[in-house]
């Protein structure tokens, strides 16, 4: 069996005696007999490291690892520079806890300060927190920031990722907040419906818009922001951080709060986690932000120093008056994002974003020749929806056989495709050739030596 207890049996005996006990049983007499376990746990015996490694490899091997991935919907397969993994494997970063003791945690505190700065730069906002569990929980936690006695209803666009909407709904079930979903029209937020809904509700608190939206399309965020503000509500945007390198920032669109999932910034897709949420706001909303925030100050010798700050907002001070219970952050993931952004730089991120867009456009054009036509028609980033004239399961299986994870089937026989800078033209051509085989379009037969 495996064990990480260093002290030998002899040492344990000595320590028991020195602590005044005759045995472990004697020490545990503080646990009443009625609740003590009578039988050993019904678990297998422990294993050696070699056996554990083998078992975990066996489990990993039962999964299919696709050579190329054309599926996004909240998990994006971007290129990850080698320096990222090298930095985040450093044991100091990996094994430390929340930096409560500033004097021996300057490294982590400074890295969070740098992360906050980079998130502010991306979003155009004044202040960012130290990070959140993921994009969906960050989105959900913007609602209590906007609720007060006069503003009680939260709104979200139907073009938002359905998982994000569901997390918001679950959080609102908790806080007894009314959350209204504004319908979509042609793959975009129905602005008339939004206008109508807000006209009828003097207590609107906030509206959440995802940009680019779940279908990959760019929304007219500025115009939507104006409608929201005209009704005295807060405008909250959920954004893709890679797109922000080239896309109008939430600040430029008039947002009060910007959130998003930082997974595209150097995190592998990892079956859904860990990822990282980011949250930034205008300075007017700084004291409403949940979570940790690092601030710059000086030490008793006047040296620059970093500390956790504005803690009067937080659960350990406010307890039952707190509007959020978060007391950690996804620090190692925030560090991942920082190293990614430092390695890519503004130009590298913009190039990645441009390639995502160009390659998505190329796939979309090529799929038309295979009989898969776009469902929506406005400008889009790296995701788009097509119809699917054949059984989507059959199509996806044919792609999977050749090591390709195809797009995600979404409601009513359509597919949401995603392309990143990692997908080469050859990958795309191969995908399209297989699709043609299945749809019977184009006459070109696919050869597996592509």
């Amino acid at each position, binding site marked *: 069996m495996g064990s990480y207890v260093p002290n030998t049996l002899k040492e344990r005996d000595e320590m028991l005696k020195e602590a005044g006990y005759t045995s472990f049983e004697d020490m545990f007499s503080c646990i*009443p007999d009625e609740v003590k376990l009578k039988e050993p746990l019904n678990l297998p015996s422990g294993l050696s490291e070699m056996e554990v490694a083998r078992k975990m490899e066996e489990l990993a091997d039962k999964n299919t690892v696709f050579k190329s991935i054309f599926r996004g919907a909240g998990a994006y397969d971007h290129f990850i520079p080698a320096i990222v993994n090298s930095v985040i494997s450093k044991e100091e970063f990996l094994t430390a806890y929340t930096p409560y003791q500033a004097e021996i945690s300057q490294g982590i505190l400074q890295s969070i300060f740098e992360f906050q700065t980079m998130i502010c730069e991306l979003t155009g906002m004044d202040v960012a927190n130290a990070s959140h569990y993921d994009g969906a929980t960050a989105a959900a936690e913007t609602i209590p920031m906007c609720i007060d006695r006069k503003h009680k209803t939260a709104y979200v666009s139907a073009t938002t990722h359905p998982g994000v909407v569901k997390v918001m709904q679950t959080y609102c079930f908790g806080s007894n907040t009314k959350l209204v979903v504004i319908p979509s029209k042609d793959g975009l937020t129905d602005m008339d419906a939004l206008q109508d809904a807000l006209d009828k509700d003097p207590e609107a608190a906030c509206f959440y818009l995802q940009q680019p939206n779940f279908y990959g399309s760019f929304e007219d965020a500025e115009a939507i922001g104006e409608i929201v503000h005209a009704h005295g509500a807060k405008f909250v945007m959920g954004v893709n951080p890679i797109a922000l390198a080239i896309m109008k920032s939430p600040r430029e669109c008039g947002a009060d709060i910007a959130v998003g999932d930082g997974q595209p910034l150097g995190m592998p897709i990892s079956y859904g986690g860990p990822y990282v949420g980011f949250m930034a706001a205008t300075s007017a909303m700084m004291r409403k932000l949940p979570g940790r925030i690092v601030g710059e100050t000086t030490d008793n010798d006047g040296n620059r120093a970093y500390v956790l700050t504005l803690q009067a907002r937080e659960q350990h001070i406010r307890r039952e008056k707190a509007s959020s219970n978060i007391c950690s952050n996804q620090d190692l993931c925030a560090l991942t994002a920082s190293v990614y952004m430092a390695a890519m730089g503004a130009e590298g991120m913009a190039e990645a974003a441009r390639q995502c867009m160009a390659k998505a456009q190329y796939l979309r054009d090529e799929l038309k020749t295979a009989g898969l036509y776009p469902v929506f028609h406005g400008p889009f980033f790296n995701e788009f929806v097509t119809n699917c004239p054949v059984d989507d399961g059959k199509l996806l299986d044919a792609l999977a056989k050749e090591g390709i994870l195809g797009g995600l089937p979404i409601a009513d026989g359509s597919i949401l495709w995603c392309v990143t800078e990692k997908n080469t033209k050859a990958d795309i051509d191969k995908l399209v050739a297989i699709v043609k085989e299945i749809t019977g379009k184009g006459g070109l037969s696919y050869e597996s030596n592509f």
Partner: protein
Amino acid sequence: MNLIFEIGKEGRGLSLLPKCDVPQTDLPEKFKRTTKLHLPQLSENEISRHYTKLAGRTHGVNDGFYPLGSCTMKYNPKVNEFAASLKGFTRLHPLQEEKYAQGALEVIQMTENSLAEILGMDSFTLQPAAGAHGEFTGLLLIKSYHTDRGDTKRTKIIVPDSAHGTNPASAAMCGYEVISIPSAEDGCVDLDALRDAVGEDTAGLMLTNPNTVGLFDKNILEITKIVHEAGGLCYYDGANLNAVMGQARPGDMGFDCVHVNLHKTFSTPHGGGGPGSGPVGCKAFLADFLPGARVTGTPEEGLKLVGAPKSMGLVKEFYGNFLVVVKALAYILTLGKEGIPEASANAVLNANYMRVKLSKKYEMAYDTTCMHEFVMDLAELKHRTGVSALDVAKGLLDYGIHPPTMYFPLIVHEALMVEPCETEPREVMDEAIEALLELYDTAEKDPEYLHGAPHKAVIGRPDELGAARNPVVRYTFED
């Protein structure tokens, strides 16, 4: 040292991406970014050195003793990291079809089943990303249960005054009124206060056992019975599970739902504050309300994901912090049925060993057998010498030891809470005991020295008040 924005030069960078191999496209003007994006412009060498410097200004479990009470800073085994780095896990899309993710579903199922056995529960969800997130999920289970029964008058959650701040905050997030009950003199639940507090409006009780002062509450069966008889449910905060795993189970103590911290008890690294994982378990009658997709079936016939019939929804995207779960499973497989009680027994032994040796000088808040952690009360020392718990903690920094948790629980005013964990060799604890005893003497002889501590850290005490009064929360670029 410099911020990352203060190094590098315009035009530096890495060569990472190939040229685009398809025709370029352009974003319509309307959607184009017009403000400059300032990000570092550095060579790879500069990035590497910058973060190596930052790592040198950080204290992790690998650097030395980290007896931070209630945080269970145990050693983070490397085989766990190996498992979590396997391509078969990292390159897995969360929305790939079940038939292509059978190994991942098996990881989830094995972990859920193991946790259910260790905690004495029937079902688990791995969605919550942290302990506080688990508390929130657990309370939503309680809320779902009462709502489903149409029992809407249950609006109150009872929380002892010794609880972690997240407990009342989680209850508030679930729309509950928090009833704080005082602890009895021995630090345990005051049964009379509890009896007075429960009623038709009681939704539930949140409790840790061992409690936040490190004691096992002997009346636990009576406590859960009082709450159940009033129609409420009992929630177990698993923050202190490392003391009892394999010795006693919350499910056998009368708890209906629990959360556990994989980043504490199950050895996954804390990562400077995350990613953690806070799975939530429950008895069968609550399982229908669990969030997210549930793994069903057997590996032989094929595992499937199915939503629970009355699911509360989702508390996070996808299936939680999956790679953290992978690490925890590797740990559970390593320890097995013998290693799990061995770990808790040694966690408790190490704590009592330190407690007895330190009580030569330090006053203990509760002078009796503790579980995996104990609380020292420095009120008398402070009264006599002016040296506070904070001063002693800062003094400890100069010994290369991470200080215990300070000023928690709130019911002990000059508290230092020590949790050594089972993974520490005896001599490391002996050195820490020596250091703490020496600091006690220093407090008596030279209190000024400790008021000025630390003396050897990379910075002195930071001006926290100034930071809050004049918040500087980002770097400002000149252009």
